[in-house]
């Protein structure tokens, strides 16, 4: 647009510098000399000053909001479908003034926000050559920086296959959940958040170290072991069930598993409500099932066990005892 000294993504450097100064200022890292340097930066170029003015108007806007209302509205989970839409727009648009485009450049450095829908699993290639698998209905952030390789699990389950770090000295590989920290010791392991203040770790190769957020001693967990932990303590390790990582390949493996537990597991991969009636929950299930075809898994159950499927709707299914003969 002629006649306007517009900031384009090519001037992203200015925005980047302004953000840098803002963080320093807010972190309390600017002494007298630092403040003078900031003042010089602002005077150096009209675009610098404009960026600074924008930052001040942003602060003003935030200041005019009642914190309580802001928290209740702005910090809401964004809908996945909408986020996906936004991404497709960002990719499709070539408008030079789009802030979203500029964001993606820094976003690449910072790491992305990964999410799966119910029934979806995802494999993600990590920057260090390792792999991250995200199970159904899960959310995680990947935040690699110079000091650490950090994955934050917000919900659901993930599996990490670490790779030797090329950085020297090698950076630690960590998975954080709300309950604590898991440190990989050269390894393949999965972490799952069980909702009610618990995380569960299953080690498939080598070992990991679990450090509950409010606990003092870390616990070392070896291959073939599984342990659940809360923010304060780790429960005693138990042997990991066979096929604990089968979901990565789209399978659910049951080996004499109680039907109730199996249905709960299957429900993680199926949208809507899937229930198991208490009178059949103790039946034993064995087999390999597809997480991508839960309908078929249910039909197979009904064929091989004395149970009936009751569809209240496509999204509300109960597994119940067979009706008595002749009734």
């Amino acid at each position: 647009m002629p006649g306007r000294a517009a900031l384009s993504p090519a001037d992203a450097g200015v925005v980047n510098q302004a953000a840098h100064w803002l963080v320093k200022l807010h972190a309390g890292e600017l002494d007298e000399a630092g403040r003078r340097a900031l003042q010089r930066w602002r005077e150096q170029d009209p675009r610098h000053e404009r960026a600074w003015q924008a930052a001040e108007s942003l602060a003003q806007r935030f200041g005019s909001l009642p914190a309580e209302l802001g928290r209740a509205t702005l910090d809401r989970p964004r809908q996945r479908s909408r986020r996906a839409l936004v991404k497709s727009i960002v990719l499709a648009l070539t408008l030079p003034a789009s802030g979203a485009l500029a964001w993606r450049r820094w976003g690449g450095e910072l790491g992305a926000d990964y999410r799966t829908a119910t029934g979806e699993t995802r494999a993600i290639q990590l920057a260090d050559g390792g792999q991250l698998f995200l199970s159904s209905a899960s959310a995680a952030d990947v935040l690699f920086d110079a000091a650490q390789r950090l994955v934050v699990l917000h919900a659901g389950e993930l599996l990490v296959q670490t790779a030797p770090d090329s950085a020297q000295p090698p950076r630690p590989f960590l998975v954080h959940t709300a309950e604590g920290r898991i440190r990989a010791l050269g390894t393949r392991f999965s972490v799952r958040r069980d909702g009610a203040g618990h995380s569960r770790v299953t080690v498939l190769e080598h070992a990991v170290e679990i450090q509950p957020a409010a606990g003092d001693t870390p616990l070392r967990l070896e291959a073939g072991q599984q342990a659940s932990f809360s923010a304060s303590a780790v429960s005693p390790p138990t042997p990991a069930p066979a096929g604990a990582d089968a979901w990565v390949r789209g399978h659910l493996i049951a080996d004499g598993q109680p039907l109730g537990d199996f249905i709960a597991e299957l429900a993680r991969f199926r949208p809507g409500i899937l229930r198991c009636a208490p009178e059949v929950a103790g039946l034993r299930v064995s087999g390999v099932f597809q997480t991508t075809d839960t309908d078929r898994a249910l039909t197979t159950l009904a064929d091989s066990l004395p149970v009936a499927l009751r569809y209240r709707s496509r999204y509300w299914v109960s597994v119940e005892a067979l009706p008595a003969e002749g009734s």
Partner: protein
Amino acid sequence: MSSAAPADAIGTLYRDHHGWLQSWLRRKLGCSHQAADLAQDTFLRLITARRQEAFHTPRAYLRTVAHGLMVDHFRRRELEQAYLDALAAMPEPLAPSPEERLAIFETLYHIDSLLDALPETTRRVFLLSQLDGLTYATIGEQLGLSLRTVKRHMHAGFAQCLAALL
């Protein structure tokens, strides 16, 4: 870059693609009223923006713009709902007056659009700092993040907002 397109070119575009766009939106939204409104808004954008690609690949362009409007529409609706819920949960004496409510909503909507593209953790860190006024150290403690990581999130948050504001 943009250049003026003759009015009759827009007329042709409208005649050729308006019906298609509206039925595309209707399929997406499941509501013909909203579809009609958004189709109208999409062409309005087109007339004011007058971008060349609108004439080279009209349907791709229209779909992109309509997508954007649809996303805004849903985001606004979500935000309105969250706002009404939050207001309802407020004790009577603290609740803002009707005039204030509207002004606050407009500010919320503006900030919400700035923050929408941010990953969840970045947004949370940013809000804890800008809204609650917590120090970076306290935010780090609350979320179990290192000071360095908090700074990275803040940097990304500022950069995103500034880029959108400039």
